[in-house]
């Protein structure tokens, strides 16, 4: 089964060689609000090897002291598609809203909720952390199989 997605203008398309729509998490930090221009970013983590992309992909690298984040965007409409990070070799972070079946996505965790926009009410009982979550806790939530 392949999961497909693409950018706003349609020039960039991708498929993910995974079994089902991936679980997603939302990050409410200020950096993600700026990247997305929205209240939060929504991501899915997949093996980098599972992504096959076609179209005019442009690259933006953000280098800081301890890591390099390489963002891949549509060169035409500039929609962000996915990124890789030297701190997580082999994994890619997909901008989950670009998935074709985005309405079927589940959001299993919210992080950096301390900077959440105040109007946004998070669903009851969904795991959330005010800042960074313990890495193993988020990994456990993202590894959950669907449906339960």
């Amino acid at each position, binding site marked *: 089964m392949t999961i497909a997605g693409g950018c706003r203008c349609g020039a960039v398309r991708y498929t993910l060689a995974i079994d089902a729509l991936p679980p997603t998490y939302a990050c409410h930090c200020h950096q993600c609000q700026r990247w997305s221009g929205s209240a939060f970013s929504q991501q899915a983590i997949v093996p980098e090897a599972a992504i096959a992309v076609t179209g005019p992909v442009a690259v933006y690298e953000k280098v800081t002291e301890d890591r390099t984040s390489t963002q891949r965007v549509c060169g035409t409409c500039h929609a962000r598609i996915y990124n890789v990070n030297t*701190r*997580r*070799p082999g994994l890619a972070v997909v901008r989950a809203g670009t998935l074709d079946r985005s309405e079927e996505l589940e959001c299993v*965790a919210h992080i950096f909720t301390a900077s959440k926009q105040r109007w946004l009410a*998070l669903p*009851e*009982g*969904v*795991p*959330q*952390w*005010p800042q*960074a*979550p*313990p*890495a*193993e*806790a988020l*990994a*456990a*939530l993202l590894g959950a199989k669907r449906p339960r």
Partner: protein
Amino acid sequence: MTVVTGGCQCGRVRYSVELADDDAYLCHCRMCQRATGGVSIAFKFVPRAAVTWLTREPDRYASSPIATRGFCRECGTPLTYEGEGSDHLDLTVGSFDDTARFRPVENVGVESWHAGWLDVTGLPTQRTDQNVTITARWMATLGKLPD
């Protein structure tokens, strides 16, 4: 008064609480031993009114005729001990985000304490990063040791 936060292992049940001090205690009764699968439980006693459940209330189990224990049904973390009719409750020390702020000032339920487990400072020690098998599993699945 200081406001601190805590919650369960998976993040589904999160709380904030106003603390007047950092005094905590251990209960060694058999029910607390079973509730944690441990040799004792570490509790912080607070007024119920001081606690705000940020995401949802904990799931609850009427563990005895005199009390209810709060926990998360997804990840199993023990969170509270709530005496029937009491205006106070206990929060488990390990569920606080900053567990290290607390210090024990008393032992209760000592009729069933396991004396040999009370002072373990003389035993051989091992850090997680010194355990080759466990470290290899963490590195393979998470890329790092747990936080």
